[in-house]
């Protein structure tokens, strides 16, 4: 199973990259789950042509009890991708990070992975890892590889750098490691050079360069990924290409050897 988490600065294109990748994996014949880990609950919109899934937090807000089965908090999107949104509290109150942890626990309790047996799981996460909850998707047992989305803009690179240093602090925890950079172009001056410098500085490969593309915007307006709305476009090919290469990522080397059950107890997040 390929398990990816997508991080990056706010508004940089994480959900766009994630959804297009999900669609690309699906068209490659893979069984895909996409989990949006953002209180805005807008990660899977372009997979669901405008009819969103009930977010887990919205469900919990309205009901006193946990949902009995997965169907209430999941929805099939384009390419049969199973879409889930954690959602979150009303901005300004509550604890969004805790919401992510609760959602993950719930998904465990409902045996999401055993039931669905996906080939690929994608977590679309907030750019700013502000508390433990936002690192939950990269804990052992969840994502194994991190993709960092960035443009050549100063603040996007700043956020990317923060993510790299946060992840390096988790090294001894056996968390996910960074597979590389998704360069989502904003057409700022010397953009490619800046990304190259960042890549050299961090030792992270640039896995793909996605150009600023009107196709992405027009498809988004129609509630679609480019793989659905413009399958023959050049940018769709870029996502298909990237997806195919990601499928060859080797499983992450874990710190401690031996049977996984010694290290990770299923359903530990509570």
């Amino acid at each position, binding site marked *: 199973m390929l398990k990816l988490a997508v991080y990056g600065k706010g508004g940089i294109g994480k959900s766009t990259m994630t959804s297009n990748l999900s669609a690309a994996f699906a068209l490659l014949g893979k069984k895909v789950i996409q989990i949006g880990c953002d209180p805005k609950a807008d990660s899977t919109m372009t997979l669901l042509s405008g009819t969103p899934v009930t977010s887990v937090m919205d469900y919990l807000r309205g009901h006193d009890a946990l949902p009995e089965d997965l169907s209430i908090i999941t929805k099939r999107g384009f390419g049969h991708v199973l879409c889930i949104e954690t959602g979150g509290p009303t901005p300004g109150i509550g604890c969004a*990070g*805790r919401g992510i*942890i609760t959602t993950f626990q719930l998904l465990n309790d409902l045996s999401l992975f055993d039931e669905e047996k996906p080939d690929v799981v994608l977590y679309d996460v907030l750019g700013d890892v502000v*508390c*433990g*909850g936002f*690192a*939950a998707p990269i*804990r*052992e047992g969840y994502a194994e590889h991190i993709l960092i989305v960035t443009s050549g803009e100063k603040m996007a690179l700043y956020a990317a750098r923060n993510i790299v240093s946060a992840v390096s602090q*988790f090294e*001894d*925890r*056996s*968390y996910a490691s960074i597979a590389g950079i998704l360069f989502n172009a904003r057409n700022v001056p010397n953009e490619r050079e800046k990304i190259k410098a960042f890549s050299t500085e961090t030792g992270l490969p640039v896995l793909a360069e996605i150009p600023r593309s009107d196709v992405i915007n027009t498809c988004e307006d129609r509630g679609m990924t480019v793989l659905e709305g413009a399958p023959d476009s050049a940018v769709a090919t870029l996502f298909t290409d990237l997806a195919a290469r990601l499928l060859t990522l080797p499983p992450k080397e874990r*710190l*401690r050897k031996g049977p996984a*059950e*010694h*290290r*990770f*107890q299923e*359903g*530990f*997040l*509570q």
Partner: protein
Amino acid sequence: MRNAAAFLPSYASDTSGVASALYELGGMTVVHDASGCNSTYSTFDEPRWYDHPSFVFISGLTEMDAIFGQDERVIEDIVLAAKRLKPLFISICTSPMPVLLGSDIPAIATIIETRTGIPTFAIRTNGMNSYLAGASRAWEAIVRRFAEKEEKHGKPSANILGLTPLDFGMTGVGHSIGAWLEHEGFSVNATLAMGNNDSLSSVRALSKAHVNLVVSGCAMASAELLQERFGIPYVVGLPVGAFSETLSKALKRAVRHCESSPLSVDGLLEEKEDGTVIIGEGVFAASLAKALPGTSPASIHVPLEPLGLLNASDERLGLEDETKTEKAMAHAGLVIADPLYKRVAKRGTPFLSLPHPAFSGRMYARHVPVLTDKDLNAWIREALPC
């Protein structure tokens, strides 16, 4: 009101269950919790504290630890203590606070194991479940980590799984059950985990046994794991009164056919006018109900996780709140329960006190009987006020 209690205490929590289950196994148990709570886990809920040393600690979680996520402080403290005390393993469990904070305890355990070389594992607790859940997960973790495949030989042997003072007090019940097993033709291989100088070596050798006798719900998860790993069948029940015979047969059948049997509650849930009502831990209550003399068995209520019982999802079994508890005892001809339940029983209801340390703590600890040794008829006659 759901879960409301004005007169009844709550059962010992899952964190106490972890500390109790692992107390004699030579490890170190750390409850990630605020300072001051250790007396709950290791004195109020732990009678062995006074004469049997063990390494039970709390982490002393502070507000700043919470804000800054200072896991490193906890890690360093545990590493330091472990280097000094050299425990055979380290287990870490959590109070409600780290649970709400979402602290990654398995990751902390990984770091500690890497730094100390001592087997370290996280045990999932939240301070909200009962001791059964904690003890159950603790033993499951221990078995998962340390039980090894061993050859069986000689006459049929059995493990006794599920002994803690939280269920049985300090009564020597292990010896009594052991003697009964010997009498029934089984040698005792090992016990989890009280009173028999149990150490990690007996955990390692658990798989030598032909069958597991599960005497409390605390041991269900470990029994299931031993079955899955080593094909050892289990039988659930406590050898009391007339039920001992049934249990002995079940043990022999289990060895012969390699078949496990949880304890059925069929016939134990119907309320009978003037009948006997037993309230307590599931394995204990069901065993006693089946053991009592007389034609119609008692009915039982289990105000805890009904581990080890078959068809336990029946809603008549549980007691979520005091109102339901009161109702459960309203038409009883005799109630057998911890003496604290008397507080919500109707005045004049015949009541047979059976102290349960996980419920009433040390209050009646001296009066915990060893029912496995007793002639139940005589015991009831003696214990009931005329």
